[in-house]
């Protein structure tokens, strides 16, 4: 039996009630449309709700509304987070409706998405919210029936006192339960008693998505709302010099054109305040098309930037981020990376005596891998609604880290947090890009200037060419084998522009006697940020491609080769700070091996294998390619994953499928390139995205069954598939791929 201290108190619940009321002021009609109706066959919308805590309220007829605390970006957490609450509340899922919670960091835990952490970090508070509400309902029934609370049980939304035969629905006791003091400690269910967690439940917004209901920030409407767009510098390394709006200003439907400054010069930025260009030109008008035409007609002069830097906080520490002057080129980047890799580097980990081991090796293999900048390319371009008046700021739209952005905005417009209300809409994709919500600040500044509600929209070209990208990376690996083909030394030297992709303490660290991990980085004025599985999204593919080559040189099966190393890491680990669990790592490889052995053998299949640990979870994958008419075709990807308890299995499989398709797409086709500071790919005609025919024909996602609390799932399946793909391509074509995108520039341009 698990008892857990509750972290909620009555005060925070009451506070959240007040805020939830305030939230109704904003876009009432829009969010009413986002709100699900009761689809329950039995229950209609109740007349009265009793708020038991910030996470849930219960209607007099037993219908339960559960608030989903975090923004929904496609991971399906708007379904799976409430499922966790419903599980502990012990209610029938068909009597649950879900709402997006307001931003209220007093009442909710970590209201942001990123790092595959929503379920992992919400797990305890979501369970506690459900369990404490269940206790309060039991206590209310015990008072009403004058029996000890310990004798009151629950079953799918009904309270029972077995000895007296009394029973009551949750709805009947909800008003009384709301007045019961929040327990200091509650009992959580044991896993064997789960009835909702571990069962597949459909996306609570599914019907609204397929019928085109307004759910996304870009769909936001408000009476009197104006449309705003921004003209950005045409190149990294340029800044605003002069505006000639004489023609654009007179165009139909145009209200105003003016410069805005995203952050003030002396502002000490928070970690997620990455922002490419400080000085922008805003164009405000009545409709999107009119603003787009004025944006084309607007004449702006730009000038080169000088060297500068800014300070940004990271946790309790501060770091200085340099912004060098210059117009950068992809070709120069390649040359600079090659130069850096042979220069002075930072040693991040050293075990044993790698130099001696390489000197005495029977065989040394050395390979270098690289990958380009990547644009996130969320299908919903960056946008935000803002209405800023003298005493309050109302905002609505898609973003990943609202609690940080709220603080940033508060500083920028000098308004206290309690006067700022940010409503979270569904995100038309995030992948890290919407962690950096400078566009929210931009929208607020524009609204403030024009004294009207405004929706700021980035064009696709703005979205794709003004940053914030996955960095470009390079890694050189060396492996030493002894005369018995045993891996005796391993060396990785990795770097990037502007940051390194290295995780020095990950596998195969801990499994090799002589190990050296080094890194380097090169400053750049091209802005970068988190992109699905930061750093891992490159280093996994490079490392797993390299290990495939090492296994081949050692004459070993790729799965058995990895398992031997992991056996060493379990029984006699090298070093003390290995940041993976070798048994769970081996577990996914073993599950993959079992699933592959159980599947019927397909003729003429070329298989590549990879495995990786990131975001607290483990994934192993086998990718099968056949060659048809001389063209490699991806037939199937088989995956084994250990992410602890899986809350909503079919949705988890869906996300796994998506991560695999995304990984293959980025590795095969994805690239942002630069010429004289200009991002060359500016729309989907030049930036090639994976399309249906290029996706694997079949994807299996198998989960390791265990009782470990959920770890992470949004990212872990993405990085290794790049290695599996490279290894399968090698077996199919005889050619090893070291540079992403694997398909060359000619083919990328199609």
């Amino acid at each position, binding site marked *: 039996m698990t008892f857990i201290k509750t972290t909620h108190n009555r005060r925070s619940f009451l506070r959240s009630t007040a805020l939830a009321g305030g939230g109704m002021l904003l876009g009432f009609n829009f969010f009413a449309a986002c709100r699900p109706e009761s689809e329950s066959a039995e229950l209609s919308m109740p007349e009265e709700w009793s708020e038991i805590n910030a996470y849930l309220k219960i209607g007099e007829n037993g219908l339960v509304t559960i608030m989903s605390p975090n923004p929904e970006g496609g991971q399906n957490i708007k379904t799976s987070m409430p499922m966790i609450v419903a599980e502990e509340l012990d209610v029938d899922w068909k009597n649950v409706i879900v709402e997006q919670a307001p931003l209220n960091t007093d009442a909710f835990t970590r209201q942001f998405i990123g790092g595959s952490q929503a379920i992992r970090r919400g797990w305890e508070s979501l369970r506690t919210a459900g369990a404490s509400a269940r206790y309060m309902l039991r206590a209310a029934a015990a008072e009403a029936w004058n029996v000890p609370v310990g004798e009151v049980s629950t079953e799918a939304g009904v309270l029972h006192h077995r000895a007296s035969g009394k029973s009551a629905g949750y709805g009947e006791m909800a008003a009384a339960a709301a007045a019961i003091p929040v327990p200091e400690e509650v009992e959580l269910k044991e896993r064997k008693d789960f009835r909702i967690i571990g069962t597949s439940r459909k996306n609570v917004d599914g*019907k609204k998505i397929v019928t*085109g209901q307004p759910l996304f920030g870009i769909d936001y409407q408000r009476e009197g709302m104006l449309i705003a767009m921004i003209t950005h510098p045409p190149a990294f390394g340029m800044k605003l010099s002069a505006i000639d709006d004489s023609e654009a200003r007179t165009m139909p439907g145009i209200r105003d054109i003016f410069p805005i400054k995203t952050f003030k010069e002396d502002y000490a930025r928070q970690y997620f305040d990455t922002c490419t260009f400080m000085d922008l030109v805003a164009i405000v008008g009545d*409709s999107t098309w009119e603003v787009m035409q004025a944006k084309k007609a607007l004449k702006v002069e730009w000038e080169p930037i000088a060297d500068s830097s800014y300070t940004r906080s990271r946790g309790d520490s501060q770091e200085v981020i340099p912004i060098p002057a210059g117009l950068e080129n992809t070709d120069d980047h390649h040359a600079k990376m090659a130069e850096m890799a042979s220069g002075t580097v930072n040693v991040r980990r050293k075990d044993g005596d790698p130099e001696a081991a390489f000197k005495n090796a029977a065989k040394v293999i050395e390979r270098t891998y690289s990958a380009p900048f990547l644009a996130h390319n969320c299908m919903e371009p960056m946008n935000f609604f803002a209405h800023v008046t003298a005493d309050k700021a109302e905002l609505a739209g898609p973003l990943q880290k609202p609690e940080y952005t709220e603080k940033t905005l508060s500083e920028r417009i000098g308004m206290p947090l309690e006067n700022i209300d940010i409503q979270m809409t569904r995100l038309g994709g995030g992948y890290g890009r919407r962690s950096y919500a400078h566009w929210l600040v931009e929208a607020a500044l524009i609204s403030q200037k024009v004294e009207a509600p405004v929706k700021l929209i980035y064009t*696709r070209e703005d979205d794709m060419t003004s940053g914030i990208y996955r960095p470009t990376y390079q890694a050189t690996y060396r492996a030493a084998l002894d005369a018995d083909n045993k891996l005796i030394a391993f060396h990785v030297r990795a770097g990037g522009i502007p940051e390194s992709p290295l995780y020095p303490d990950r596998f195969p660290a801990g499994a090799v006697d002589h190990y050296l991990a080094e890194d380097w980085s090169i400053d750049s004025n091209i802005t970068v940020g988190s992109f699905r599985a930061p750093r891992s999204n490159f280093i996994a593919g490079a490392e797993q491609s390299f290990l495939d080559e090492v296994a081949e040189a050692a004459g070993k099966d790729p799965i058995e080769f990895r398992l031997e190393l992991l056996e060493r890491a379990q029984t006699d680990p090298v070093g003390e700070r290995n940041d993976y669990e070798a048994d769970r790592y081996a577990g996914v490889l073993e599950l993959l091996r079992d699933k592959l052995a159980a599947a019927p053998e397909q003729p003429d299949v070329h298989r590549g294998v990879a495995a990786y640990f990131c975001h607290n979870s483990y994934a192993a994958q086998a990718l099968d390619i056949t060659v048809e008419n001389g063209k490699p075709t991806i037939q199937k990807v088989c995956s084994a994953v250990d992410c602890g308890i899986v809350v909503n299995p079919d*949705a988890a499989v869906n996300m796994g499928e998506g991560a695999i*398709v995304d990984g293959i797409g980025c590795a095969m086709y994805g690239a942002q390139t630069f010429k004289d500071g200009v991002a060359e790919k500016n729309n989907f005609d030049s930036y090639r995205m994976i399309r*249906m025919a290029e996706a*694997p024909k079949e994807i299996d996602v198998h989960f390791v069954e265990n009782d470990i609390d959920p770890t992470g799932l949004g990212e872990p399946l993405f990085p290794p598939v790049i290695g599996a793909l490279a290894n399968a391509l090698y077996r199919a074509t005889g050619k090893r791929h070291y540079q992403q995108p694997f398909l060359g520039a000619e083919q990328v341009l199609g």
Partner: protein
Amino acid sequence: MANFNLNINGKKLQVDVDPTTPMLWVLRDHLNLVGTKYGCGIAQCGACTIHLDGAAMRSCQLPVSAVGEQAITTIEGLSENGDHPVQKAWVEHDVPQCGYCQAGQIMSAAALLKNNADPSDAEIDAAMNGNICRCGTYLRIKAAIKTAANG
């Protein structure tokens, strides 16, 4: 600016807009039919797909002045209660992740099935090639199209 009488989702609607305005923005900004999505503005992603006299069409490339009498159907008008076979199949397969591209995917799929009741894999690939799903739900989209075809 000019007045246009449009036939959208079986209703006669009038708008007063610049004749060059693409239907995408007429729908979104002037008629509050925001299910049709902006993705690229150059007919490369399919998020803005509507039906023009039953055929799939990228509304970002269709000026309002070119529509005339032709009937427009948007995702909001594909069915009365969201029960078009393609919509039902989408829910059955729980296709969406972020969901942003799905209206366009559904409109392309519905147009395909109207002309080809039982498409092969290659025919589905060809018909859906113009629709990008950044979340990578392609396998479910294909499975849902097959379910809708056989339903």
